[in-house]
C-alpha cells in the first residue's frame, strides 16, 4: 500500500501530464505483480469499490475520539476521507504492512459487513497517506487527475510500445493484467487481442494547414465530409457482444442502452455519437447531458435520444476491412448502413467537390441544416487504408474558423509547474449594463513572451488578491483587451452571464484596444441564439 499511496499522493499534486506519466511509469516499473495490476485497474477506473459509506467511516472515528475535536478537524480540512486519514487514533499492535493485493482480495471476496470489520484494522496499520489512499479506494473514485488513457500511456511508456497497441489488447484482459505486464517487461509475447467485441485502435486526422497543404494536394485524391460535433465512437457488435467505445477505448455501453439496442448488425462501425432527433443532429450541449454518466434513466434517454452517424466500417461479418482503401470501405459502409435502415444509425454524407476553391466556399458557408452545426470538414484520401494513430497525410481535419470576441481581463490566477511563478490563467468578461460580467477562462493560446507581458500587466495592475487569484484593474477607461477564440457557446446556469464557451483560448492580445470598445454580453447572446437555431434561421 505504501508505494501506491505515495503514487496517488504525488499524482494529486502534479498538474503536468508528462510528470504524471513519469510517476506512473516508475511506479509500474518498481511495483511487483499483482500489486501494480490492481493499481492500474484502480487508476483506469476498472476497479471501483463501494465498500464503505462516509457515515460508516465517520462513526468509526467518532467511537475513538471526542466528537467535538473531530468536528473541528473536519471543519478545518473540509474532506472526510482526508480528515479521518489524518486524525485516525490508531491502536498500537497492528504493525504488519498492509499490501494493496491483500486489500483488493478482501474487498472482492468478503461481504460488506465483513469488510467493515476489516477496515479499522487496516487503518490502524497504515500511516496517514496510506489511510487517505485506502479511504479513496473504499469510497470509490480516486480523483487524482488521471484518465484511463493516461494510465494506458504510462503502460506503453513502460514497455516502449505505442499506446494503440496497449488499447488493442486491453479489452481482452482483466485485472491484475499479468499477461500485459509480462509482455511490457519483455518476458512474453503480446497478449492475443482477437477477442470478439474488442476495441480497434482508431485512425485520427492531422489538422490541415490550408495555406501550405492545399497547394500541394490534388483535390481528386480526397473525399470530403462534415466534421460532426459529437464524440467519436466505435460501435461493435460481434458474436452477440455489443459495445460502444470512445476513441480512447473507454467502454461507455452502459450509459447508452438506446444506441446498443440499435446495433443490430455484425461488424464494427466508426462514427460520431450525437443526439439525433428525427434525423437531425442536436447541438453538442444536448449530448453533454448524456456524457460522463455510468447509467441513464429512461426519461433522459427519451428526451435526449442518442445515435451514431457512421463514417467508416472496420469489420463486416468477421471480415477485417481495415486493409482496404477508403473508397472501397465507403461503398461497403453505404450498403451496410442502408440495409440497417435504423433511425439511430445514419450515414455521414460525402460532400462532392471539384476544386479546393469550391470546398473553401462550402466550409465558409455551409448549407442550412446539420452542416451549420458541424465543426468543419474532414478530408480523407480515397486510397487510405485504416491505420491506427495519427498518420501524416491520409486524413485531415479542417476546422471551421473559430468565433471571436474581444473581452477584458478581470482576474488572473497563478499556474502550475513551469508556470507557478506566472499569472497564466485568465478570467475575462464582456460589458453588460456598463459593468463587466465574466464569460470564460482561458490559459493557453499565447506565446511565452506574451505570457511574460501579461504577467507583468497583472502584477502592475492588481487591485485585490484572494489566495492565488488577483483581481486586475478593468474599467471602461483602463483594462487589457483579449481577443478570445472559441468553438461555440451554450447556455449555462452555472455562469452568472448565462453563457459558457467551448474551448476558449487567447487568440490575440489587443494592447491597442480601449477596454470600453470590448464586446457586450448582448452580442454573445445573439451569437448563441443563431447557433442554437442552426440553419433554421435562414
Amino acid at each position, binding site marked *: 500500500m505504501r508505494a501506491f499511496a*505515495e503514487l496517488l499522493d*504525488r499524482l*494529486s*499534486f*502534479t*498538474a503536468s501530464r508528462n*510528470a504524471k506519466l*513519469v*510517476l506512473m511509469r*516508475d511506479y509500474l516499473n518498481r511495483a511487483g505483480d499483482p500489486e501494480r495490476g490492481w493499481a492500474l485497474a484502480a487508476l483506469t477506473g476498472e476497479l471501483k469499490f463501494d465498500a464503505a459509506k462516509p457515515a460508516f467511516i465517520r462513526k468509526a472515528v467518532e467511537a475513538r*475520539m*471526542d466528537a*467535538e*475535536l*473531530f468536528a*473541528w*478537524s473536519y471543519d*478545518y*480540512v*473540509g*474532506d472526510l476521507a*482526508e*480528515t479521518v486519514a*489524518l*486524525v485516525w487514533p490508531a491502536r498500537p499492535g497492528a504493525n504488519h504492512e498492509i499490501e494493496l493485493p491483500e486489500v483488493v482480495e478482501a474487498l472482492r471476496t468478503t461481504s460488506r459487513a465483513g469488510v467493515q470489520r476489516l477496515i479499522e484494522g487496516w487503518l490502524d496499520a497504515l*500511516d*496517514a*497517506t496510506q489511510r487517505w489512499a485506502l479511504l479513496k479506494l473504499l469510497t470509490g473514485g480516486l480523483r487524482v487527475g488521471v484518465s484511463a488513457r493516461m494510465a494506458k500511456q504510462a503502460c506503453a511508456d513502460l514497455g516502449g510500445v505505442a499506446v494503440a497497441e496497449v488499447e488493442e489488447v486491453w479489452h481482452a484482459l482483466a485485472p491484475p493484467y499479468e499477461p500485459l505486464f509480462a509482455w511490457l517487461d519483455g518476458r512474453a509475447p503480446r497478449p492475443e487481442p482477437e477477442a470478439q467485441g474488442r476495441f480497434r485502435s482508431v485512425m485520427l486526422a492531422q489538422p490541415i494547414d490550408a495555406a501550405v497543404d492545399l497547394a500541394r494536394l490534388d483535390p481528386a485524391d480526397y473525399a470530403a465530409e462534415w466534421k460532426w460535433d459529437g464524440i467519436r465512437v466505435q460501435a461493435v457488435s460481434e458474436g452477440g457482444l455489443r459495445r460502444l467505445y470512445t476513441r480512447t477505448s473507454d467502454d461507455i455501453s452502459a450509459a447508452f442502452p438506446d444506441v446498443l439496442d440499435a446495433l443490430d448488425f455484425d461488424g464494427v462501425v466508426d462514427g460520431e455519437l450525437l443526439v439525433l432527433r428525427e434525423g437531425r443532429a442536436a447541438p453538442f450541449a444536448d449530448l453533454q447531458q448524456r456524457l460522463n454518466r455510468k447509467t441513464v434513466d429512461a426519461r433522459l434517454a427519451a428526451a435526449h435520444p442518442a445515435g451514431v452517424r457512421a463514417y467508416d466500417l472496420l469489420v463486416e461479418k468477421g471480415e477485417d476491412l481495415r486493409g482496404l482503401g477508403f473508397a472501397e470501405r465507403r461503398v461497403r459502409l453505404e450498403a451496410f448502413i442502408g440495409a440497417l435502415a435504423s433511425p439511430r444509425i445514419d450515414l455521414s454524407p460525402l460532400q462532392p467537390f471539384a476544386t479546393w476553391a469550391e470546398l473553401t466556399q462550402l466550409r465558409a458557408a455551409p448549407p442550412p441544416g446539420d452542416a451549420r452545426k458541424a465543426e468543419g470538414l474532414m478530408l480523407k484520401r480515397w486510397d487510405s487504408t485504416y491505420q491506427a494513430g495519427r498518420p501524416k497525410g491520409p486524413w485531415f481535419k479542417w476546422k471551421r474558423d473559430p468565433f471571436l470576441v474581444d473581452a477584458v481581463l478581470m482576474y488572473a490566477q*497563478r*499556474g*502550475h*509547474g*513551469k508556470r*507557478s*511563478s*506566472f499569472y497564466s490563467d485568465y478570467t475575462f468578461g464582456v460589458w453588460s449594463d456598463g459593468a463587466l460580467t465574466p464569460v470564460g477562462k482561458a490559459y493557453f493560446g499565447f506565446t511565452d513572451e506574451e505570457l511574460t507581458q501579461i504577467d507583468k500587466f497583472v502584477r502592475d495592475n492588481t487591485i485585490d488578491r484572494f*489566495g*492565488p487569484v488577483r483581481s486586475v484593474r478593468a474599467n471602461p477607461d483602463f483594462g487589457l483587451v483579449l481577443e478570445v477564440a472559441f468553438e461555440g457557446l451554450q447556455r449555462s446556469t452555472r455562469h452568472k452571464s448565462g453563457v459558457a464557451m467551448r474551448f476558449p483560448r487567447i487568440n490575440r492580445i489587443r494592447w491597442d484596444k480601449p477596454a470600453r470598445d470590448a464586446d457586450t454580453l448582448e452580442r454573445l447572446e445573439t451569437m448563441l441564439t443563431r447557433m442554437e437555431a442552426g440553419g433554421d434561421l435562414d
Partner: protein
Amino acid sequence: MTLKPESLLCSRPEGLYCPPGDFFIDPVRPVARAVITHGHSDHARAGHGLVLATAATLDIMAERYGADFAGQARPLAYGEATRRDGVEVSLAPAGHVLGSAQAVVRWKGLTMVVSGDYKRRRDPTCAPFEPVACDVFVSEATFGLPVFRHPPDAGEVAKLLKSVAQFPERSHLVGAYALGKAQRIIRLLREAGYDRAIYVHGAMERLNALYERHGVALGPLAPATGADGDLAGEIIIAPPSALAERWSRRFADPVPAFASGWMGVRARARQRAVELPLVISDHADWDELTGTVAELNPAELWITHGREEALARWAALNGIAARPLSLVGYEDEDA
C-alpha cells in the same frame, strides 16, 4: 498553588508580562526589559532596552537587526539562572531552532514555564526540548488540532530525494523559512547521504554562516542567484515567498516544494500551488503538544497562540485547567 499564577505572569498588549520582576517575555512592542525565547522575528523584535536570551539567539538578532538591536544584550546559558527582585529566570532548550529556549520563571515556590515555540522530535541543528516540571505550562498551539500529525522527517526528505532522481531534467525548489527550517532541511539532506552542493537563496546566506559558526556543519552550499546554468537536477532552498516570484523563473521547470507543517493538509498545499509538499515542521504537532502536557501534568495550562480551543478542550477532557491567552502578533505563516 497558594499564589495565583496571574500575579507572576499576565497578559498585556505588549505581550506576556511579569509584574514582580518587571519584564516581558517575547514582547511584540519595544519594552524596557525582555526575555526572548528564540530568534524568529515575531518573537524577537528590535528596540528593547535589556534583552535576556541565549547567546545563539542574541547572535541571530544581531545578524538580523544589526549589533545595536537592543540597549543591552545579556546572554544566559541553558540551565543558568538569574534573579531580579526575587524572581528567578532560567532558560531550558525548546528544540525549535538554534538557540531556542523555554523561559522558566520561579517566584515564592511557584514555577511557570513559557515554552515559546517548541517541538519534541530530534533536530540536528539545535538542542532537544527539555521538560521542566512546573505549576503552569504556557504552551504554543500553532498545530493545535488533531489533523496535524507530522510524519517522520526522514521519510519526507526521502520523498524529495526520490523526486530529484525521478525528474533529473527539473530543478527542485524547496520553500523553507530562512531561520531554522532551511538549515534543518540541509542537515537532513546530508544525513540522508546527499553530498552535492545545495543552492541557496541570497536571503539565507548569512543565517547559514551563523549556523556554521555555531557548529552546525551544512556541507557544500552555493548561491542560487548567479549560478551557472538552470540548475536542472539540483536542489535549491529559498524563502517560501520566492517560489511565486519572478526570481524562480531562472531555474529549469522547477518542482515547487514547501517544507512546512501546514503541508499536511492538502488544501493548504494546493493553495500555494505546491507540487511536492514536505511535512516538516519546527513546531510541536498535536501528538507532541498533548504528549508534553500529559508528561508535565501542570496544574494549569495556558495557551499563547495558535489553535487554542482544541488544545484547551483536550486539556479539559483530561482534567487539566486550560486558559487561552490569545496573544496577538505571533504569525503562523511559515511554520
